[in-house]
C-alpha cells in the first residue's frame, strides 16, 4: 500500500494539476485566463512525462566517465519539443484574443456569445 502510494504519487499530483488546468479552461469566462489554464494543463502533462522517464539512482543523460545509470533521454526530447510548440500556440491564441477584444470590445465569453446571438437574430430578421 505504501509502495503504491510513493510509486504513484507523482502521477496522481500530475492528474490533479491537469484537472485544475482543465477546470480553468472549461469553467472560467475570461479568454486570457483560459489560455493561462491551458498553460497549466500543458505543464502538468510535462511533469507526468518526465516522471515516467526518471530512473531511481540515475544521473542526467549527459554521458560522463564513471557514471553507470542514466535517466531516460527520450521523454526529455519529446517534452523539449512540446514546450516550444506550447509557447508557439499560446502566442497564436493570444493574438486571436487581442483581435477578439478589439472586435467585440470585451474578452468575456458571456459577452461574446451574447453579441454573436444578437448579430444572428439581426441577420435572421433581414433574411426572413
Amino acid at each position: 500500500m505504501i509502495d503504491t502510494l510513493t510509486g504513484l504519487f507523482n502521477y496522481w499530483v500530475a492528474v490533479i494539476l491537469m484537472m485544475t488546468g482543465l477546470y480553468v479552461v472549461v469553467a472560467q469566462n475570461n479568454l486570457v485566463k483560459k489560455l493561462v489554464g491551458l498553460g497549466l494543463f500543458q505543464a502538468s502533462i510535462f511533469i507526468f512525462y518526465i516522471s515516467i522517464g526518471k530512473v531511481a539512482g540515475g544521473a542526467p543523460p549527459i554521458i560522463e566517465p564513471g557514471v553507470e545509470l542514466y535517466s531516460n533521454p527520450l521523454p526529455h526530447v519529446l517534452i523539449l519539443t512540446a514546450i516550444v510548440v506550447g509557447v508557439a500556440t499560446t502566442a497564436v491564441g493570444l493574438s486571436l484574443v487581442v483581435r477578439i477584444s478589439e472586435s467585440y470590445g470585451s474578452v468575456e465569453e458571456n459577452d461574446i456569445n451574447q453579441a454573436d446571438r444578437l448579430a444572428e437574430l439581426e441577420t435572421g430578421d433581414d433574411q426572413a
Partner: protein
Amino acid sequence: MLLSLLLAVAIAALRLRDLFAVVMLFGIYSLLTALFFMDLDAVDVAFTEAAVGAGVSTILLLAALRLVGRYEKPHRHNPLLPLVVVCATGAALIYGLSDAPRFGDANAPAQTHVAPRYLSEGPAETGLPNVVTAVLASYRGFDTLGETVVVFTAGLAVLLLLGMSSPSPIPDFGSEDDQRMQRHAAKGLIPFILLYALYVQFHGDFGAGGGFQAGVIFAAGLVLYDLVLGHLHTRQVIQDGLLIRLGALGVLIYGCVGLYSLLSGQPYLDYSALAKDPVHGQHLGILLVELGVGLTVFSIITLIYYAFSARRVKA
C-alpha cells in the same frame, strides 16, 4: 513538497480575479516546474521550461494583458457541471494509472525499449556527450524539423492576425530621463545575455543547452532592450523585415541539410553523408541543424513580441 507548492499556485491562479496576478502566478508555476524537472534529472528540459515558460510565455501574456484589460469581470454561473466533469475525468485517469509502472522503476517499459541503445551507442555514433541533443538533432531529426516549422508557422499566424504596425513616432517611455537607472543596468547586462545565448547554442553538445534555449535567451535580451529603451529604438536595431527573413533562413538551413543528404544518395536528414567520416558528418549536421533551430526560434519569438508591442491600445 514542490508538488504541493504547484498545487497551491494552480488553485490560487484559478481563484484570482486580477489577471496580472494570475499571469505572475503562471510564471511562478513554470519556475517551480523547472525546479521539479531539475529534481528529476531533466536538465535540458528544466532549462527550456525556465527560459520559455517563466520567461517568454509570461512576457507574451503581459503584453496581451496590456492590450486587453487587467481585471476579469465577476460572473455568476453554476460551477457544478464543470466540477462534476473534471472530477469524473480525474477519477477515471487515476483509476487508469493504477497499474502504471512505479516511479523510478528501471525495468519499466519506457526505459527498456530504445533508450538503452541511445545511451550506449549515442556518443559513439554522433560524437556528443549530451544524449538529449544527439537524440533531438540526429535520431529524432524529423520531429525537430517539424517543430521548427511549427514555430515559423506560429510567427506567420501572429503576423497575419496582428500585422506589424510601424512604431509610434511619439517618444515612448524609454527616452524619459528618470528611467536612467534601468537603462544603465540594461545596457550593462544585454551584451552578456546575448553572449550567454551564443555560449548555450554552441555548448549544447556538451552540457545542457542547444538551439531552442539559445534562441529564447537571445530573444529575451532583445525583449529587455525593448522594455527599457522603447519600441522605436529596438525596431531601429533589428527591423521586422530582417527578422522574418532570418526565421525563414533557419528553416531553410534545416531543410537544406536534409536535402544535401538526399542528393548525396542517403536518406533525408542522414548526416553521415555530410563528411567522409560518419561521426564528423553527424557532428557537422547537428551543428548546422541546431544553428537553424536557434535562428528560427530567436527571430520568431522576437517577431511575435514586436507584433504585440507595436499594437496600439484601442481606447
